[in-house]
């Protein structure tokens, strides 16, 4: 059954009380591996540093899911600004919106959150449909400025920042909507971890069109587009990275190295290199689609658990949720 909810929220929605930022500084350690520089920033114990988003000015947002904060790291000096998101907050995903603000799937309050880039004021918009705990996951803006999001509780939705109108729909097959991505062609795709599928959302109607991956029960967790609009998918159950090309409906897949890989996240960089994380190997793994080869970057600490990656030209970034560190990898200069 398909449920549709529509509500125009009043201006301002739920504004969090006062902005509190606590100045802090993250120590950085640098090492080299496979011709790359790896920097790790010890951000804040207990934060559960996970999803990241890179600003154009070089700073990096990351979610403190464990302590209900959004954090801004300045890699140049380790500077940290901490923005509490409210009582019960547990942010999962963060992106930088077209307005320059940080937009967050704030699962703890079942809300979409916006943190202003300048004054860090927090605004919250509660979901107006679906389960009381949609288990909000990931979000992306389309080219018209509409925010699309997923909830593992079995929902997809959209939010119009200009009108503050939110719509929430039941997802096909129930539980599972996880990663979501925008292609250069302007199409929006998401994957369902529990539902084991890829789907394209009709941005006019919100209706998903399921595209079944060839590997049954693969556990499609995250998705990212390359420069051609091909969808790269991290498969948790199968331990594969797969690629779907909507132009010819083709699929390819590659098993990550190791005994029993657990491919958690995927990010495609500006050169179309595919960055993956493998929980079994406790590693970030770079896949080159041209040579079809993997290069592994194991963490220097156990249980790193990088759950998402993002980046800027020449740099791949992730949050080590198990060590409370943010990691950046870039090519060593000759």
């Amino acid at each position: 059954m398909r449920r549709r909810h529509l509500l125009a929220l009043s201006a301002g929605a739920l504004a969090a009380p006062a902005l509190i930022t606590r100045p802090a500084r993250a120590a950085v350690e640098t090492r080299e591996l496979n011709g790359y520089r790896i920097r790790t920033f010890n951000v804040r114990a207990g934060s559960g540093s996970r999803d990241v988003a890179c600003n154009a000015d070089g700073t990096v947002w990351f979610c403190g899911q464990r302590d209900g904060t959004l954090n801004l790291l300045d890699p140049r000096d380790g500077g940290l600004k901490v923005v509490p998101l409210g009582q019960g907050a547990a942010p999962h995903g963060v992106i930088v919106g077209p307005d320059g603000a940080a937009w967050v799937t704030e699962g703890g309050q079942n809300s979409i959150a916006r943190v202003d880039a300048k004054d860090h004021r927090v605004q919250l918009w509660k979901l107006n449909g679906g389960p009381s705990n949609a288990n909000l996951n990931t979000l992306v803006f389309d080219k018209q400025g509409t925010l699309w999001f997923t909830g593992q509780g079995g929902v997809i939705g959209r939010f119009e920042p200009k009108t503050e109108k939110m719509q929430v729909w039941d997802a096909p097959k129930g539980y599972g909507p996880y990663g979501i991505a925008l292609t250069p062609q302007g199409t929006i795709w998401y994957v369902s971890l529990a539902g084991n599928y890829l789907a394209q959302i009709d941005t006019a109607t919100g209706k998903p069109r399921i595209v079944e991956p060839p590997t049954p029960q693969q556990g499609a967790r995250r998705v990212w587009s390359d420069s051609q609009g091909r969808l790269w998918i991290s498969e948790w159950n199968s331990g594969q990275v797969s690629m779907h090309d909507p132009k010819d409906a083709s699929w390819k897949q590659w098993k990550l190295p190791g005994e029993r890989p657990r491919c958690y996240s995927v990010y495609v960089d500006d050169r179309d290199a595919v960055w993956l994380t493998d929980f079994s190997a406790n590693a970030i793994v770079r896949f080159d689609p041209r040579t079809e080869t993997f290069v592994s970057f194991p963490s220097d600490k156990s249980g790193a658990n990088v759950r998402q990656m993002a980046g800027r030209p020449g740099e791949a970034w992730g949050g080590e949720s198990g060590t409370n560190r943010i990691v950046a990898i870039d090519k060593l200069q000759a």
Partner: protein
Amino acid sequence: MPVLRSTAGLVAVFLVAPLAQAQDCNRQVFEPCQACHALAPGGPQKPGPHLAGLIGRKVAGDQAFDYSPALRAARDKGDVWTKERLDAFLSDTEAMYPGGWMGSPPIRDAKQRADLLCVLGTP
């Protein structure tokens, strides 16, 4: 195992209360968990282990699931899911077993954890 703090009274209730009946539990609290976990073995593969018979089961006890090194180490040293241990785990999974794969945030509400334990402890 971390020491229980504000949940001491809750634990006392668990120790003396008989097993709850399924209909007594607030099953709605388990809904977010169902994206990754089943309450019964078998069925389609889920992203996480099944939770059938969890109370009294060894930590990392679903033989069909490959667990994180953190959970496997706990199993190897003989940890068992008692209600007390599970309550502490749910209150902050990362504090009890750092480096575990489950990405759930801490459940700070003792009532919510009690409801979950009711569901997980019901045959």
